[in-house]
């Protein structure tokens, strides 16, 4: 099974460990993983800012680079939802796009839906607060959002529950937005930061030691606030926990 690995631009630059953990998880499942070197970005920063024309070449490039793989996997619900929901206008006429939409997966949903993972060889003896990143939750439907009626489920939570010794914290608001929102974090700085601080307060009351999420962008924003406030909470992308990662400073 040939998998094309898509690494979001800011993870490539700022969080290489998240990308390495993603790669390791896929390799551990015996997959043939390739990382096309000329990839850059899904185009979301431009599209979210209303500059859709500036995002178009990136959509075309994404299709060119990833169209031939059996699956495309990315450690980001947001970038995957960009491909699935917002590429339509740019590349819908091009060969292979409909297939690309169907075979592009966020890492966790790829693990639950394609690899049908039932056990995970990882141990993480901490109180973990799961931040349900909005685009994974409400665009990719990786879980039931609190607004919608029906039986509860969460693909990310299910995977975390397979990790040994992990303790998942209960939040008062299980799926409120962290306030990152791409350029929103800058355009609406005051509201964005208050939203983030409110999320942190919820995690603190729940006794969270480590916040995890499917999207590092949420954690970059929350982590920036934590670091400034010198709060004793750590940030790890879900791929890092599922790959058996440890906290910085922890001995093997």
């Amino acid at each position: 099974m040939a998998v094309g690995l898509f690494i979001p631009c800011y993870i490539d630059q700022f969080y290489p460990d998240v990308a390495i953990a993603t790669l390791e998880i896929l390799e551990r499942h015996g997959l043939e993983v390739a990382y096309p070197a000329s990839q850059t970005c899904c185009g979301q920063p431009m599209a979210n800012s209303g500059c859709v024309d500036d995002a178009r070449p990136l959509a075309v490039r994404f299709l060119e680079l990833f169209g031939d793989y059996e699956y495309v996997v990315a450690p980001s619900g947001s970038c995957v939802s960009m491909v699935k929901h917002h590429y339509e206008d740019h590349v819908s006429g091009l060969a292979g796009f409909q297939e690309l939409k169907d075979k592009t997966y966020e890492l966790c949903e790829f693990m639950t839906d394609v690899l049908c993972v039932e056990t995970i060889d990882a141990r993480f003896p901490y109180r973990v607060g799961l931040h349900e990143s909005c685009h994974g939750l409400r665009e990719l439907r990786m879980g039931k959002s609190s607004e919608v009626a029906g039986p509860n489920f969460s693909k990310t939570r299910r995977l975390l529950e397979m990790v040994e010794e992990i303790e998942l914290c209960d939040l008062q608001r299980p799926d409120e937005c962290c306030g990152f929102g791409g350029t929103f974090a800058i355009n609406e700085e005051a509201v964005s930061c208050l939203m983030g601080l409110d999320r942190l307060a919820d995690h603190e009351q729940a006794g969270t030691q480590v916040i995890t999420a499917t999207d590092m962008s949420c954690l970059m924003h929350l982590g920036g606030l934590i670091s400034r406030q010198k709060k004793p909470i750590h940030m790890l992308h879900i791929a890092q926990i599922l790959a058996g990662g440890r906290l910085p400073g922890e001995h093997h």
Partner: protein
Amino acid sequence: MNTTAENHSSKAGVFVSDSDKAHWHDSALWFVREKRDKQVNDVPEWEKLREAASAIKTHTVAQLDQYLQMFEQKATALGAKVHWAQNAREHNEIVHSILKNHGAQRVVKSKSMLTEECHLNPYLEQQGIDVVDTDLGERIVQLRKESPSHIVLPAIHIKKEEVGDLFHQHLGTDEGATDPSYLTEAARNHLREKFLAADAGITGVNFAIAETGGIVVCTNEGNADLGVTLPRLHIACMGIEKLIPRTKDLAVFLRLLARSATGQPITTYTSHFHGPQDDSELHIILLDNGRTSLRDQSDYQEALHCIRCGACMNTCPVYRRSGGHSYGTTVPGPIGSVLNPVSDSATHNSLPFACSLCGSCTDVCPIKIPLHHQLFTLRDQIRRNGNLALTKRIAMFLTGRILGSASLFRVVGRMGRWVMRGFPWLFHNRFNLWWKQRDMPPAPKQSFGAWYSANRKEKHR
């Protein structure tokens, strides 16, 4: 441009700067959202109701002209007088002419966002008519000479201490009194006098039934009933999108409306008016004011399905923390951020950006309006209309160019991280809005791309 008085983020910044009040506001609305969730989870067919409501609205809007004609015919046959208004000015003039014909000087009005949209109160006051809003929240904002900050909870931004001061000043309640029961009783007595003295009652309309010509008004305070039962003149003001085809469709919408709005199974009063009462007149004004134009815009047409429940406001993490007045519009929040820029993107260009695209509004909407997708699309529309700040357009053009070339991206990334490591102070300044409350992300020496070519070279291509 983005520096106009309508800019949401600057007004939101002021609201957020009083973080106690912002948190109080957030909690008050989240309380309503949780009440709503509890009600919703007690209805096993909730998602089916949402789908049915969406389908009924889609059907109705597609044949709006026919249903409007049917409604006019049936309502007229019941003895009501139907008027058509193209815009707010026409609407207000029609209301005034009806009042004038009856020599009506004192008017009581129940809650109607449509009359807020038309700025009916100031218009009638200019004509020397005394208009009193009889919904408690609306009366509070009217006495404060403000506009509602929420379409269902107009005074949600005002604390009970502020209401106490206001009532002390206007209604003569005890100074410093803040007990809600006491203040409500004072308002009730004050409004009772207004009801008894009124020459005419104005109401909004929640639903108009095409097959019967009847209208339905939902309130929790019974003020619509009082306001139109005592006087001999009832003027009902409605947008043309309030139409539903059949009486039985009401069963779908009434179950959705109050649960979504306030977390009640049904509003306390659901009043049906089929024609005028004995010895009375019922006038129904059908207003367009941009609704036909919205209907013709396929990207945003579904916004016309809105039943004004306010659930998108209660759930919106931005609305809850920035307050309704930060939107500078009659209808704020997610639905207001669609409706207002669609009709005037130059004035309201900041509203679609007052959104983190979390999608909660879309999931909470009882009519399944894809609000956050519409907000996403509107951003592009605003740029195409020339209403996106030039600095943003240039920034995004350059970002797009850098990301458009893998080699340029690698070079700029490597240089950027080098600067971040070596000269962090360059980023630690007030021009960097990220840094104002957040530390910068780490700037590792090696990107993943570089790590990959060093460690997985055989697979590199």
